[in-house]
């Protein structure tokens, strides 16, 4: 399968958008997962529901909401422009934001599952050894939640590679700037008789996430092998 220069450009852009989105959102996702797993505060259920929104609403609606909030006329967009002079409209950064938002619920849920599975008595042991809450979080909770972090990352990455509706609605379909793999596939689908292009691009998508999958499996395999040396 030969990819044209334009195809490579699309692949590069997709990777940039997805990775940037998912990596930037990762720490926030973990904090949210932690809050939902451990916190007790009023409005927790509302926060939980809000995080699920990108999953529940059609992506096009999320794209539109992003447009209303972050577009040049939107409240957040206007502030971004005034304070930092940046605009995410029609920019790859906007696509990364859309990818991150769409990936968020998947990441939070996976991480939360892992956090809830952590044995709090092990954390207690760390506390008695002099670890403050922050250090305990970093050295005990975080590494013990690694399976959830890896799963969250993979789910989020795959989701943002496949993201289409929110992106095209929010930042349009601009080659070289916001036209990711999914959008390019959409464009190809609009042209009768371009099935070959669709297949080619779809295969590239699949290859990308297969790569991510292999990497993650190798990572968690190694981790598991280490810890559970006990065959008893």
């Amino acid at each position, binding site marked *: 399968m030969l990819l044209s220069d334009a195809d490579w450009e699309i692949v590069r852009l997709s990777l940039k958008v997805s990775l940037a989105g998912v990596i930037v959102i990762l720490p926030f996702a973990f904090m949210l997962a932690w809050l939902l797993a451990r916190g007790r505060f009023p409005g927790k259920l509302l926060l939980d529901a809000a995080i699920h929104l990108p999953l529940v609403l059609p992506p096009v609606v999320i794209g539109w909401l992003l447009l209303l909030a972050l577009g040049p006329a939107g409240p957040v967009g206007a502030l971004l422009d005034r304070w930092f002079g940046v605009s995410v409209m029609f920019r790859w950064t906007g696509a990364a934001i859309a990818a991150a938002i769409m990936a968020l619920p998947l990441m939070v849920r996976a991480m939360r599952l892992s956090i809830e599975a952590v044995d709090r008595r092990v954390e207690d042991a*760390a*506390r*008695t*050894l002099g670890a403050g809450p922050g250090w305990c979080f970093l050295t005990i909770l975080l590494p013990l939640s690694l399976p959830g972090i890896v799963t969250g990352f993979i789910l989020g990455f795959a989701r943002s590679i496949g993201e289409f509706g929110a992106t095209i609605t929010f930042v349009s379909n601009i080659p070289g700037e916001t036209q990711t793999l999914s959008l390019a596939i959409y464009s190809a689908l609009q042209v009768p008789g371009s099935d070959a292009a669709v297949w080619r691009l779809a295969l590239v998508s699949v290859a990308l996430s297969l790569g991510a999958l292999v990497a993650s499996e190798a990572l968690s395999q190694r981790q598991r092998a280490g810890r559970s040396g006990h065959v008893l």
Partner: protein
Amino acid sequence: MSFEVEVRRTLGDRMIEACFAAPSGLTVLRGVSGAGKTSVLNMVAGLLTPDQGRIIVNGQTLFDGAAGTNLPPHRRRLGYVFQDARLFPHMRVRGNLLYGYRLAPVDDRWMTLDEVVAFLGIAPLLDRWPRSLSGGEAQRVALGRALLSGARALLMDEPLASIDPARRSGIIEAILRIRNELSLPMLYVTHDPAEAEQLATQLVTIGG
């Protein structure tokens, strides 16, 4: 007084009560299974909050229900050997041993890794993962981890329960040395009368 403990706490439909003062040295806590020994250690360590009462260790008030004092566990600096080993599954034995050691101010450390490894006989285990340890091996590592944390007092919950007689006498000797030379106050739970006899400067019965 090394330990002044006067606490009360409801757990489910059980009420755990303890009231004792230990002058110094090693205080053995005994009592039937379910009497509340582990609960008392947890309250002293700050892992379980008493409903009411006071806990003073080496003259420092760690908890006072009336005054609202409640030091978090990591500020109490008490080395705790749990009834279950509770090792960190994601760190090798060496990492487990050094976890508290690295957090302790240099001046507070009163033992080195080499000393601990030697008298517990765990040198061959240093690069192993906790899950691959035998029961007695894990228990020894947990003991070493607490000893290395530079604690100002020790809480030990049946630390020798699954350790063979040969090793046991070596460890008992070391504990006696810590008790006498470092004069570190200790609360020590055991069901073994012989062990209590050898170690205790004072005996306290919980739920008696």
